[in-house]
Structures are given as structure tokens and as C-alpha cells.
């Protein structure tokens, strides 16, 4: 088992390297000249070239990439053009908020989707099932940002239960957390239901019943553990998606998170910051997938370790 985990983590390294190459290439080939951005318009050729040299922008692609990846390995993501601060520092300030929203959304997703999906499957073709499934259809159809605005209008503006604008408190994260949680729960609940329906038809569920176990043990122990195997993969993918997808919500709720930082930096063409934020987001998606892989092996003994 430890060997399996180690292997997964080692396999993550080439993916991360490839990711840095892609992110770097995007910014290298992206239109827009960072030098004129730093120097401003109307500079002499000498000044322009000295800035180019200072940032190493006169070097060929491969040399620049080499330098980039070396500094990334040392934990240096460059200096913000606008704020003249290390990018890593700016990300460190913003990341916790994004992680908190994402995690809260993730927990809400799980807490709603699993029981709803299981009960809908057990009570297939009953009123509860129909209610659940039409609810999820609605949840899938509603975009996260729109649900965010709706929640903001009802619970913050009308009912005044939550602050409208970001004040940095934990309370402020609840609404965006629900916006993420509810939309993701919709898709996940459907997955849980169909996975559960599939498992409930299996012979081993009948065997469990023939042993005289409580129906609860049959459903929540024997069936659910099997039904969760495909859900874990899905949730791993969703976790990354949730983190990346909170960009719009951070703007609606004016929360100073990583997504907000990225959008602001794109608008002001602060390339090092965008690059850094993108690296962190993609890394977290990769990490989430590795975690899902490991969890997968923990739940399903048929996965070969090693």
C-alpha cells in the first residue's frame, strides 16, 4: 500500500513538469509584450533592451524555461510587475480563502449528494425519488454564478443573514460554499443514485440479505461501499474543478481569493502573477486526482498495489 502511494506521488512529478512547460509556453507565446508593459510606451531602444536583458527576456525559449523551472523548484514564482512583491507571497495570502470555500463546497456536496442519491436509489420510482431527481435536474441547469447571485440576493440582501460584501470573516464563505456545494451535489447525487441502483442488483447484495443483516447494513455497508468506488473518481475530478471554478463566485461575493487575484492580474497584464496562480491551481487539480487514486485503492481491494 505504501509502495502504491509512493508510486502515485512519483508519477505525479512528470505531470507537474509537463504542466509547467505548458503554462510557461502559454505565456511565452501569448500576444502582448511584457517588456513594454514594464517600461511603458515611449522608451528608447537602449532602455528597452536593458529591461529585456534584466528579465532575461532576450534569451531563447529553452533557456528561459530552464531558468523558470529552476526558480519554481526553489519556490520562487517571480515578482509581480505591478506590486513589486514576490508572487508566492501574494498567492499565500489568497489561497487559504479559496481553499476554504472549495473545501466547504466539497463537504456540502458530499453531505447532500450521498444520502440523497442512496435514498433515491432505495426508494426508486417513489415521490422522494422523483423529487430528488427533478431537484438535481434543476441544480445541473443552474450555473454556479447565477445561484451565487440568487443566494446573495435572498440571504444577504433581503434576509440579511450574511454580509453582502467580503469582510474576510468565515461567515462570508458560507454562501459561496453553498453555491458550489448545491450545484455539484446535483450531478453527484445522480451519479450516486445510478451507481447505487447498479450495485443493489448485484448478487452479493442478495447474499447480504440472505444472511439476515439489517436492511441498513445491507444498503449502507455492503452496497454503498461498492457504489462509492466510481464516485471517488468523480469527486477527485470535481475537487480540482471546484477550486478552479470558484473564480466567478469570488468576484460575485467580492472575496479576495486566488481566482479573484488571477482575474485582476489578467486584466492588468501582471503576467508573473497569472502564471503563478495558474500553476498553483493546476497543481491542486493534479494533487486532487492523485488523492482520488489513493483513496480508490483504499476502498477497492481489487486495485493492485505496487
Amino acid at each position, binding site marked *: 500500500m505504501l509502495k502504491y502511494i509512493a508510486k502515485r506521488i512519483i508519477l505525479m512529478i512528470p505531470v507537474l513538469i509537463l504542466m509547467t512547460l505548458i503554462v510557461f509556453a502559454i505565456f511565452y507565446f501569448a500576444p502582448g509584450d511584457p517588456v513594454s508593459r514594464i517600461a511603458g510606451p515611449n522608451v528608447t531602444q537602449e532602455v528597452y533592451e536593458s529591461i529585456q536583458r534584466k528579465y532575461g527576456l532576450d534569451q531563447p525559449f529553452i533557456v528561459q524555461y530552464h531558468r523558470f523551472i529552476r526558480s519554481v523548484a526553489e519556490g520562487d514564482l517571480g515578482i509581480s510587475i505591478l506590486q513589486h512583491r514576490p508572487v508566492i507571497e501574494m498567492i499565500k495570502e489568497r489561497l487559504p480563502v479559496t481553499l476554504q470555500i472549495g473545501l466547504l463546497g466539497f463537504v456540502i456536496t458530499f453531505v447532500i449528494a450521498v444520502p440523497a442519491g442512496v435514498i433515491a436509489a432505495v426508494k426508486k420510482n417513489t415521490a422522494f425519488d422523483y423529487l430528488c431527481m427533478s431537484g438535481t435536474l434543476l441544480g445541473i441547469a443552474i450555473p454556479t454564478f447565477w445561484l451565487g447571485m440568487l443566494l446573495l440576493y435572498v440571504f444577504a440582501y433581503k434576509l440579511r443573514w450574511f454580509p453582502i460584501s467580503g469582510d474576510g470573516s468565515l461567515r462570508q464563505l458560507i454562501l459561496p460554499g453553498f453555491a458550489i456545494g448545491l450545484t455539484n451535489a446535483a450531478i453527484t447525487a445522480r451519479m450516486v443514485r445510478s451507481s447505487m441502483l447498479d450495485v443493489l442488483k*448485484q448478487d*452479493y447484495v442478495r*447474499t447480504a440479505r440472505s*444472511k439476515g443483516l439489517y436492511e441498513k447494513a445491507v444498503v449502507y455497508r455492503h452496497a454503498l*461501499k461498492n457504489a462509492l468506488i466510481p464516485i471517488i473518481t468523480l469527486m477527485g475530478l470535481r475537487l480540482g474543478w471546484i477550486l478552479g471554478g470558484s473564480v466567478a463566485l469570488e468576484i460575485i461575493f467580492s472575496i479576495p481569493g486566488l481566482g479573484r487575484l488571477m482575474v485582476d492580474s489578467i486584466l492588468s497584464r501582471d503576467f508573473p502573477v497569472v502564471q503563478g496562480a495558474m500553476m498553483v491551481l493546476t497543481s491542486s487539480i493534479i494533487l486532487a486526482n492523485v488523492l482520488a487514486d489513493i483513496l480508490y485503492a483504499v476502498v477497492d481491494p481489487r486495485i493492485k498495489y505496487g
Partner: protein
Amino acid sequence: MNEVILEVNNLGIDFCIEDRVIPAVDGVGFSLLKGETLGIVGESGCGKSVTALSIMRLLQMPPARISKGEILFKGENLLRKSDEEMRRIRGRDISMIFQEPMTSLNPVFTIGQQISEIFMQHQDLPKKEALSRSAEMLRMVRIPMPEKALKQYPHQLSGGMRQRVMIAMALACQPELVIADEPTTALDVTVEAQILDLIHELKDRINTAVIFISHDLGIVAEVADRVAVMYSGRIVEYGAVCTVFNEPKHPYTKGLLDAIPDIGMSRNKRLREIRGVVPYPDEIKNGCRFKTRCDYVRNKCISKEPPLLQLGTGLVRCWNCL
């Protein structure tokens, strides 16, 4: 020792699929004494497994529906029991061995977890004791290194070993009735012989009654005391195993016996088969169910269904035998 453990009377089970009502089992009855083995034989779709599952009350309802009859276990009608009462009986008083050892064990739990939960459920044993009892059961079904097997998952065992685990689970609480639904069909022949020996031996040791379901008359002849031959949801012949096999009365039973290849048979001689296929249970509205495939069919067979009547020591459902 002549205590009746199970008595099934006039059992009828319908399947309601869309607008059709298909009588899968119609008027089936038999009884089982303590420690006795009853074989139920028949082709696929004749209602053997449905009968077995209905005794356990494990049929999916709907689409299945018990239309009539009663199932008396130690004098009490199982069809009248509440779900909770039935749950307590399952695994403790009546247990079942299923056909597919490959899919009948839960892939994500260890063998130890799957056996010990029966002890924990029915006998309130603490986990540790339940596990040591499970190891005992594994030893009883002759699984080598039981302590190691407890920690293994089903996919790490062969088909024969998994079926041994199923048997261990079925016998865990020393039930009074074990229903074995084609327990050896999915196994190869040498393993089949071992499993049959094992069932035979353990049955005597814990003195449990067994309903042994099979499509293989040869196997039933080996293990059963009495046999019921089923055709299209009905019992067509019922009696002591030696009588049914040595002097089969019903044309269907005769046909089944003729269809068993004999090792000493001349190569030139064609193996006799029963012509045609089993009709859907709702296909034949009146007359004998076997009339479409019977070589001895008469006018009476076409219009009127024969009753199950006493003939010698057994029961037969055929006009020709009266």
C-alpha cells in the same frame, strides 16, 4: 426424527411484467423432514430458483407477487411474517447457498468480515470471538490456512474456495434448513465433486435439512432423499429418489433421464433429447403444460390439465399414468 421442518402448500408466484401476468410457479407443494434432503430438478425457467427465493422471502416484489399458498416453517407461515421477523430467520434458521460464487461474495470486504458479521448479527458475539468462530467455520469447510483466508478478499480465492466460503456462511448459525440453489453449476467437475462431498458430510454433521436445486439429475440422485421434478412452474413428479430414477412415470422425467449420456453408450447411437423448448408459463392456457413436447400426447392432454395424483409411493401429473 420425523418432525416436519418445512411445508409448502399450493404456492403460486406471478411475475407482473408490464401488462402481462406470468405465473412462474403454480400450485407447488412439498414437505421436508428434519435432516432430509429434497432435490428440485428442472430446466432453466421452470421456477426452481423462484420457489427457493420465495422461501427466503428474497424475491423482488414487485415484479414478483405471491398469488396463493403458504410456506410453513416449523408450523409458522413465513408469508405472514413481518420483514423484521423474517430478517431474524434468515441466516440463522434458514440460509442459502447461491449459484455464482464469483459474484455472490462482496468484493470490497474480507472473507473474515463477511462471515463474522453473521455471528455478530444473530448471536451478538463480539468481533474477536466472531472472527475466531469464522476461522472455525473455514476449517470446517476445509479451507487451508483459515486465519490467512480471513484477511483475504474474494478475488484472491478460486471459484471452489469461494463456494466453500459461501457454504461456511450458510452453515455459520447451524440453520435448520439450507437452500442450495445450483451450488456447483458454476464450478468445474472435479471441484464440483469436492463441494458435493462437503455438503453431504456437513449436512449429516449438523443435521440440517437441505433443498438442493439443480438441473442435473445425476447430482440430485447422489445427494437427495426425495426429488421433485418441476416443469413450467409445476411439479410434475414427486417421490423418493430411487423410485423416481429407477421407475420414472412422467414423460418429462423419462425424457430428462434419457438425455443423460451414458459412458458405455455406442457411438453410433444418437443421444435422445426432449424436443422443443420450455414454453412460457403463460403460453399454455389449458391442458397439460408438457403437451407441446410430449411423445404420448392424447386428446385429453390437450384440453384438460392432469392433477398431481398419487401413484405408488410418489405423485405424478400425467393422464397416461392413471
